């Protein structure tokens, strides 16, 4: 077999095609004003899909989804940090129960979580409000962030921190110059995962949102009724996910 068709290149080509072909069709469909079967190439190109997608609630939905995803990710990392630290450094004598409680939201359908929370949020005036949506998403995002983050903590980070302490660094300096750089890859992965889970969350948004537009809720009805608008909205849906992936990949390069 020649170098041109080496197994490595064949595997790479197959993997790249498995991703690029399905997603690439989204781009084509979003700009195809007429694409009737059995044609393989669109009969007419145009911007109807984008115009229709952006003329409705999509921009409000985009903003709502983005605000909720960013707030939830920040709060989840702040809450997960101490829990991940304690679990990762194995400071608990019996870690199984706290870990189980922490991971339980992964097993409960998000629509169930949202529907259950709605009963309390109605009394608190949190239904149809961004804080309510953020709280509902937080229940689902927190375990993902904690599980990813706890892999960062352990004896190597503790040893580095002790070394820094012996050199006279303050707690803030240790966090800035030692801990954050040491856990950066896991932190970046946790932030990425937290953002993506909240960004694509459907069930709890439907239950708690009370009709407030969120991007997945706005997109779904178009899947059956108008594939071109659905494709245009999908590109809008994909953009922040890709941006978050690129930012996380850049941030993950640990200097330590």
């Amino acid at each position, binding site marked *: 077999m020649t170098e041109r068709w080496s197994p490595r290149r064949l595997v790479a080509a197959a993997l790249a095609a498995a991703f690029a072909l399905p997603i690439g069709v989204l781009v084509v469909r979003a700009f195809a004003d007429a694409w009737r079967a059995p044609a393989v190439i669109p009969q007419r190109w145009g911007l109807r899909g984008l115009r229709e997608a952006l003329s409705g609630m999509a921009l409000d939905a985009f903003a709502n989804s983005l605000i909720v995803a960013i707030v939830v990710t920040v709060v989840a990392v702040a809450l997960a940090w101490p829990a991940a630290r304690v679990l990762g450094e194995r400071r608990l004598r019996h870690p199984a129960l706290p870990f189980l409680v922490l991971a339980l939201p992964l*097993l409960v359908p998000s629509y169930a979580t949202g529907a259950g929370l709605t009963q309390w949020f109605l009394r608190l005036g949190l239904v149809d409000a961004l804080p309510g949506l953020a709280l509902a998403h937080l229940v689902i995002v927190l375990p993902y962030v904690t599980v990813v983050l706890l892999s960062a903590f352990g004896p190597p980070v503790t040893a580095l921190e002790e070394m820094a302490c012996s050199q006279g660094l303050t707690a803030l300096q240790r966090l800035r110059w030692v801990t954050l750089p040491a856990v950066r890859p896991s932190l970046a992965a946790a932030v990425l995962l937290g953002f993506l889970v909240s960004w694509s969350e459907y069930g709890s948004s439907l239950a708690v949102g009370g009709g407030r537009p969120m991007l997945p809720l706005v997109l779904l009805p178009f899947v059956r009724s108008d594939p071109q608008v659905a494709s245009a909205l999908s590109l809008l849906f994909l953009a922040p996910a890709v941006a978050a992936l690129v930012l996380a990949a850049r941030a993950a390069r640990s200097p330590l």
Partner: protein
Amino acid sequence: MLLGGALAGALRTSVTRVEGDGETVTLAAWRMLLRDPAFADAVLFTVRIAVLATAFSAAAALLVALTLRRRGTPLRALAALPVPVPHLLVAVVAVLWLAPGGLAERLLGALPVDLVRDRAGVGIVLVYVYKEAPFLALLLLAAMGRGMLEREEAAAVLGATRWQRLRWVVWPTVRGPLVVGCIVVAAFVLGAFEVPLAVGPNAPLMLAEYAQQATQNDLLVGESLQAAALLVAAAASIVLAVAAVRLAKDPQGD
């Protein structure tokens, strides 16, 4: 605390009926639910889809991980590309490719079976396999690491065949992460909502779809039915997780 509140809220709703100014405690919703043949169909359909999607994802992930275990970061990154893509977006892609009159039919001619909105739920399974197999493969590749390759080489030097190396070196290394990953995937599929709404059949329904329809079909007890159905889905996830952990335990206690 929030999850406990949510489950308590769902339980309370499932046994409460609003009458006039007050509320009464009743098991009417649970009785209706258990007598409804559509609910039994939804439970069976949901469990079947979850088991199939998880099994196929695990098999595909094992295959990908075994192929890529000696490969570098670029190939692994390529394999992981579907991970950040939202499920709903993959469902949109599935409709564009696999629905009647979709791109697959235009390129290959009529497909022998319906793959989108079919009664067997093939479309739902395909969407989850495309999304979850790379996620599981990442977990397996992280578990395999350099240590396993060295153990495999040592076993080969001692004369172990390819099958023996798979059975006694690779499988014990990946079994734990694979079970954990499969539990997460199965639980995710048991609560599936937007994917079956996009590519699933009108009947039978997945449990989350059934719960949503209950609120639209019955204004009096709809919310109680919804809460009860979702509690069943949550219970099914937890039971499946416990069963998977027990099954995966080594007879020697490892």
